[in-house]
């Protein structure tokens, strides 16, 4: 049970103790896995900690990322999977069992982000992009969308205000309030 309990326990279909993230992603893509993979850094179990990170997949294409120890979701969670080998367990689930979790936009990642950032593998990036549904590979590079975005001062002001409020709130959390600029 992971990601706020939205993902039911799947059927364990593969388990490796010395898994490379890139090879795991390639294998998941080849098998067209729908389900999730739990990555745990080697030694984590011995240390008694819960250092698990989870990626979910639809037909082999990454959808969500979540890192339990930091409660980070989305691309923020991918940092936990950088470098090193992992104990990786792949679980299968019917697509409808993932539907609730896949509505959590904050945890969603671009389909090619794991291959690009964690595996640095051109071929895997290309294969993942080709396998991803069209509505998930729109990376916003559309010139019309960019022009529209930059012509909407209200939308940009909203992003700024939200970021400013978030920065101030988190500064308090991290003990950085005194570093905030009064101006």
């Amino acid at each position: 049970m992971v990601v706020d309990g939205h993902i039911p326990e799947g059927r364990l279909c593969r388990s490796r103790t010395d898994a490379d993230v890139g090879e795991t992603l390639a294998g998941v893509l080849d098998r067209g896995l729908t389900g999730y993979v739990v990555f745990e850094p080697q030694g984590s179990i011995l240390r008694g900690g819960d250092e698990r990170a989870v990626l979910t997949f639809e037909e082999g294409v990454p959808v969500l990322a979540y890192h339990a120890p930091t409660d980070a979701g989305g691309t923020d969670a991918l940092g936990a999977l950088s470098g090193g080998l992992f104990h990786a367990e792949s679980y299968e689930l019917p697509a409808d069992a993932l539907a609730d979790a896949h509505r959590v936009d904050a945890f969603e990642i671009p389909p090619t982000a794991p291959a690009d950032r964690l595996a640095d593998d051109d071929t895997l990036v290309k294969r993942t992009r080709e396998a991803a549904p069209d509505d998930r590979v729109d990376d916003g590079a559309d010139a019309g969308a960019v022009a529209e975005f930059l012509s909407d001062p209200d939308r940009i002001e909203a992003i700024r205000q939200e970021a400013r409020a978030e920065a101030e709130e988190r500064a308090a959390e991290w003990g950085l309030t005194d570093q905030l600029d009064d101006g």
Partner: protein
Amino acid sequence: MVEAFAVASGKGGTGKTTSTLALGMALADEYDVTVIDADTGMANLLFHAGLDDADVTLHDLLVESSGVDVDEAVYDRFGMSVVPCGTSLDGFAAADPGRLRDVVADLAADTDVLLLDSPAALGSKSAVLPVVLADRIVVVLQPTVPSLSDGLKVQEYARSYGTSTAGVLFNRVRPDEDVDAVADRAARYFGGTTLGSVPESDAVRAARRAGEPLLAHAPEDPAADAFHEAAATLDVRSGDAAGVADRFRSAVVPDRP
């Protein structure tokens, strides 16, 4: 004379580490440059700089009891001083992010330009510290809505801490993207100057695989030219090294009364 820049993007995949090293190498023609991998949770600068087997890294400097001298984590590479960060989660777990200010203060004393390769995230203290500590940020963007949106967000975080924007650099620009039009519009919302537009290039990945910065691996590549132009456009301000060092030392954790 010193100015510290955080090279930031807010979003992964924009080529921030490539940009940091490229700007560093280009600036090293004129300045004494130190590059620090401040992305302590997802370090990768070491792979770009041929330092995969570095014995001592920033992680060691961020552990109070390690007894490691700052100089031990500084490597002379490609005309720059490079401080890589380790990739182990154990190292990350043991590191105290607050100590980054001391490390930066020490390094600031002996260099002209400090470049902090910053995390592509804002979700933790260690991720946000580079933009808190820097004098100004360089925002690396792609001409896409998610990248511009995340760039605005990291700029706003930086401004909250009094860190202004030195400029924006458009990177990984594809031939079909009209970046000039985007840059003109974006300039209304981003501070500083538009430093340039770097084309997407296969040479970047080849350089990464070779463990060399782009400017060393493919100095004639159009992307390398664009980074040179961007570095020339960046106005490095003179600062008082001692003053900067003091500021870093007093930052983040105020002295007890």
